[in-house]
């Protein structure tokens, strides 16, 4: 008889009460015997510290630990027609086993669930783990860390101390309040400011929410620029257009720092933003008389900003709603009138003359309501419509018809049409559902499809809440909608976020590492991954990795051919300048293909090369990481005892677990082995023991190059695109 062994399965040694580890442990899928060699294959289990193999001479046991197995590659050739595909994969192998037939089991030791949650928290509620934040979250525990991030108003913000560039940019941006200032702050400075906050903020979740809502209520800098009077100088147009983006961002920041911030608060800021009024063409819309109002804003308000596509509205609702927005315009007013929506055009001239040409006016561009362009009279939106049955209680069957009746006269009262529309829509279940879905997609995983009320679309059944067996995803969306509905005031963002972070789904393998980083998340997380304060002060200049912000978000003004913008190169992620109103995608597939991966890896490699050498602001290419720099040797010197500095295993292990926390030591074994091998090999591929190198953080020293190359390889792997 062949020596074929039976297979069996053991439960994991530790069963968790939380979301981690409640899955079925791995099953051995393949066991083969060839002479003295036995090979076991099974799918890896997430977050495992150690795999243990046990064997017994009969299926009933007793099973004893078998230490002979090691991980090893095997080649797999698959015939495919006349072609063959060759792959290398890994299995566990014992080569000294000549005994008789045995039964085998694999047992796993899970990583502590607090470590897994810590990794999940740093990947979702922050722009990625830093060495210092890893230390801190292990010290205070992930629950306390979550509670902190859910209350940013009570976190002392250290960002401006950590990077003085923020204050420099911030001062420039703040001075953009008027059209006559002479400083040079434009879109690149604002983008840099945004990136530096993402890298440095103590209130990380606030920054993530700002990026989320900025991208949700998307506007396009370039459209504002084009709308502005072209008699302005080019630089002035750039400043004014950038200011519109900055102004709405500042208002959202202030709103989100209110513990009771509602979705309506954020929606209203968007509706009143000159950038939005210009972006979706309300600025030229006319509904007066029998004129046909522009549908663009009404459509996207329903489709993208509130209800979601095919979710509770029809074309006639768009047409009717578009009338409500006619008259919402943008005008240059005196700064004292910046928040008076009925203010006249500024009559203060730059040269003091009576020349009232636009470009001679002193003031700010602001939302301005001009009732003479408005379609007066009664408007009925969502006529006789009721919430569909799939929503269940408390919403199903309720009417959401909206009648606007603000008079038939040309009066400032008619501005109420627009405000009533957003007040009405902000807390409809369609809106709470769609926004909750998007937030879950951001913080949990991509598998939350867009909701719909069209029964012929497959997504209908997914969010059919009264059905008995809801998926965990649909149940979480429903929980978020209830948090939205039942708190007063309704629609509190931080309450919805807490619902998500409290959920089992958020705290499980189903969420951990399941998302692809956007280019912004990828670059910022790369800086953070190697960024520790060498003296523990957290002050500007003490860090082992750094960026000036614009080296990530681009130094020129959105020129599509500008190769000095890593976010552009990694998939056209032009901050504050998205041309399509659906915002940058949150799901992974649109960001990942060979071209963007090439740019990502190239950037990581440049970032890891010592600044000034070929490949990093050397002369091979100007399109590199530029002022985004790293010093991994200083990082390991800060975090490891000197006795470990030439210990390849210790160094490789430190970077593996720092860059990939929560992956599990056993699952990182191949990474660690590759990193150790890299450290012990010269550039030409010959053996060169790391232990014999002279420790140095000097650029181009052998030790420095060796460590930098190893870190670059670790960060170039597939896993680094996941969060």
């Amino acid at each position: 008889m062949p020596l074929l062994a039976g297979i069996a399965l053991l439960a994991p040694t530790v069963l968790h009460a939380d979301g981690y580890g409640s899955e079925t442990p791995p099953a051995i899928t393949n066991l083969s015997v060839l002479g003295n060699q036995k090979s076991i294959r099974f799918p890896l289990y997430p977050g495992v510290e150690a795999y243990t193999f046990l064997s017994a001479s009969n299926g009933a046991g007793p099973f004893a630990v078998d230490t002979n197995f090691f991980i090893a590659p095997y080649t797999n050739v698959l015939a495919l027609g006349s072609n063959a595909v060759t792959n290398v994969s890994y299995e566990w192998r014992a080569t000294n086993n000549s005994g008789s037939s045995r039964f085998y089991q694999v047992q796993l030791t899970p990583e502590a669930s607090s470590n897994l949650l810590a990794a999940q928290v740093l990947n979702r509620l922050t722009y990625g783990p830093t060495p210092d934040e890893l230390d801190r979250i292990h010290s205070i525990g992930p629950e306390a860390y979550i509670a902190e991030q859910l209350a940013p108003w009570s976190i002392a913000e250290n960002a401006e101390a950590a990077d003085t560039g923020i204050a420099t940019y911030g001062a420039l941006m703040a001075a953009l309040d008027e059209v006559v200032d002479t400083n040079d702050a434009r879109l690149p400075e604002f983008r840099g400011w945004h990136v530096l906050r993402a890298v440095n903020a103590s209130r990380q979740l606030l920054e993530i929410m700002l990026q989320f809502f900025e991208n949700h209520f998307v506007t396009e800098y370039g459209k504002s620029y084009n709308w502005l009077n072209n008699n302005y100088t080019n630089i002035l147009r750039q400043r004014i257009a950038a200011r519109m983006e900055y102004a709405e961002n500042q208002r959202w920041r202030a709103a989100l720092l209110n513990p009771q911030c509602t979705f309506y608060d954020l929606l209203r800021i968007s509706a009143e933003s000159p950038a939005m009024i210009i972006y979706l063409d309300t600025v030229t819309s006319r509904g007066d008389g029998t004129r046909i109002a522009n549908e663009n804003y009404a459509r996207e308000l329903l489709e993208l900003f509130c209800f979601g596509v095919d979710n509770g509205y029809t074309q006639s609702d768009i047409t009717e709603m578009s009338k409500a927005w006619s008259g919402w315009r943008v005008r240059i007013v005196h700064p004292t009138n910046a928040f008076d929506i009925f203010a006249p055009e500024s009559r203060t001239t730059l040269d003091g003359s009576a020349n009232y040409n636009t470009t001679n006016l002193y003031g700010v561009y602001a939302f301005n309501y001009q009732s003479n362009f408005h379609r007066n009279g009664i408007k009925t939106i969502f006529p006789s419509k009721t919430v569909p049955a799939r929503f269940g209680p408390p919403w199903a069957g309720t009417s959401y018809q909206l009648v606007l009746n603000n008079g038939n006269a040309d009066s400032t009262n008619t501005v109420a049409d627009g405000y009533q529309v957003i007040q009405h829509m902000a807390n409809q279940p369609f809106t709470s559902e769609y926004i909750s879905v998007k937030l879950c997609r951001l913080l949990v995983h991509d598998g939350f499809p867009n909701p719909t009320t069209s029964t012929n679309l497959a997504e209908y059944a997914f969010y059919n809440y009264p059905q008995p067996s809801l998926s965990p995803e649909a149940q979480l969306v429903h929980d978020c909608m209830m948090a939205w509905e039942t708190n007063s005031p309704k629609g509190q963002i931080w309450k919805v976020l807490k619902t998500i972070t409290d959920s089992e789904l958020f705290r499980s393998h189903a969420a951990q590492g399941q998302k692809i980083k956007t280019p912004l998340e990828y670059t910022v997380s790369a800086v953070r991954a190697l960024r520790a304060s060498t003296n523990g002060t957290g002050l500007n200049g003490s860090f082992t990795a750094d960026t000036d912000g614009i080296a990530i978000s681009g130094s020129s003004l959105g020129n599509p051919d500008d190769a000095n913008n890593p976010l552009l190169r990694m998939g056209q992620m032009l901050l504050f300048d998205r041309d399509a109103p659906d915002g940058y995608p949150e799901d992974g597939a649109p960001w990942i293909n060979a071209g963007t991966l090439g740019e990502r890896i190239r950037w990581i490699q440049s970032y890891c090369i010592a600044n000034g050498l070929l490949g990093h602001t050397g002369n091979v290419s100007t399109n590199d990481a530029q002022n985004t720099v790293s010093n991994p040797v200083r990082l390991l010197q800060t975090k490891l005892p000197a006795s470990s500095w030439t210990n390849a295993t210790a160094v490789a292990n430190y970077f593996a677990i720092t860059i990939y926390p929560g992956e599990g030591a056993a699952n990182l074994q191949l990474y660690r082995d590759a990193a150790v091998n890299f450290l012990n090999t010269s550039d030409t591929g010959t053996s060169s023991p790391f232990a014999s190198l002279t420790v140095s953080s000097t650029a181009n020293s052998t030790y420095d190059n060796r460590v930098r190359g190893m870190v670059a390889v670790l960060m170039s792997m597939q896993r680094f695109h996941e969060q």
Partner: protein
Amino acid sequence: MNQLNIITRRGFMDRSFKLGLGVALSTLLDIPLVVRRALAENGIGLNGKKVLFIFLRGANDSINAVIPSRDSGLYSLSGNSGTVRTDVRPNIGIPLDAIDYSSSTIDSPVAGAGATFAYSNAIRAGNGFAALHPSLKFLCPGLLANDLAVLHRVGYPNQSRSHFDSQRYWENGSPNNNGVQEGIFYRAMVESGLAATAPLTGVSFQSALPLLLRGSGVAMTNLADPTRYDLLGVPYPTGEAKADAALAAANNFTFPHKQQRDLLASQYRNLSQTLDLFGGIDFVEQDAQLVDDASTDGSGSAYRLFPTANGTNGGGTATKYVVDTGAYSFMKNVRAAALVLNQTDAIVSGTEVGGWDTHNNQGSTSGTHANLLSRVGWAMYALRKYFLRYGKGGTNVIPGTNPKVGWNDVIVVTMSEFGRTTKQNDSLGTDHAEAGCMFVAGGSVNGGIYGCSPSDAVPWLTGDTGSLYGVQSRYLKRAYDYRSVLGKIIRDHLGATPGQLGRIIPGYANPAENLGVTSPAAALDGTQIMGEPAII
């Protein structure tokens, strides 16, 4: 019913058990069943035929592009000409000349000694009804040579007027199904059986891989900038080989299964396979090698086919620019798409051009929309000349290159998610509507105007209750389904079997959709459609 790829926690754990083997490499080890099946049928990719697509994102105003010049719903007709109706498109309508628009003449504004480079009004397109926007004047040589098909009234049942939905349906080939996350050309490449083994089958040159080429099983390629497609290595350059080797080995590492890992694994493999492939192509055209065969404006200079700077645009003479100066990155992408089709074994390549969402100030014979049309018109012209001159069997093959495809074996096709409202809005623009137009060109194409004539099998009805107002009294009503156009190309040009076509465009497998018929029939929503146009 439920075609969603929703991976719940339970779902993907279950899935990993089914895959069984080293999970990280499941895409590489588990060649999708459909690929194995395709090998038995063959067809696509083996006949040397190729496709180049251009997606016009934002919804092209087809009524100003391909103009129904004899429709009283748009013009106040007077004799054989007319004037733009002031209650329909007072500011944006395209004026007619005082010439006979019922004539079968194809005006020739760019060919020959009598070329009128500054053509300014609607151009007669040869069927006595349709006319072209003057910025599309470079389509005329194709019409004259009978290798350009202009298709009007193209849409699909229950048309969505959302950009994002409608683009998705055009790309996934499944109208009103948001759950299908695979593109038409992706599926065509999978059905070819080559996608899992050839390094390159479908490729795009734009900011991100379009849904047309996206799918979860095998990797298609997108490049934003092919000229910087290589890696560095740390330190550079001495450590490059070592770094590359380490990365290549790491691609095989085994991982706990994650939602996005198959995507990453397949694209990492795609990256390593295509790095060398693109290294040998001169994407920046160092030596001004790609030029027209004759002057287009009588000035004696042969223009660059793909202008990417002012100096290469219309001979460098501002008054004769063939495209607006904002077109250069698009022209660069068109050139890359053409080069890759001609110099590699890729079967499908393409790009996109944005900015078509002209709600506001779209312009008339000049302005935003006119500029955009000039980009597409010139791109169609340049691609035709490129493959005629530099393609396989071409007249001016560049020494040292080994062209893989000529004009007779290429089809260029444009798409756009929908048309725009028949009446202008009060922002001097147009809003989202229904049917639009497509251009299909290639040496094997039966040129001409399709779907823009009262004598069509489903006639273009004129007047205030005619085709221009055929849906809700404000939108152009469709007479073709875009899937019939793409289906015709994929089957009769690329060589798909009927069985494959039914999997590439699922509607073909449903007789009630009537996508493959050649005489008028009812679509799912009852609208009469003409089935497949005889463009090939």
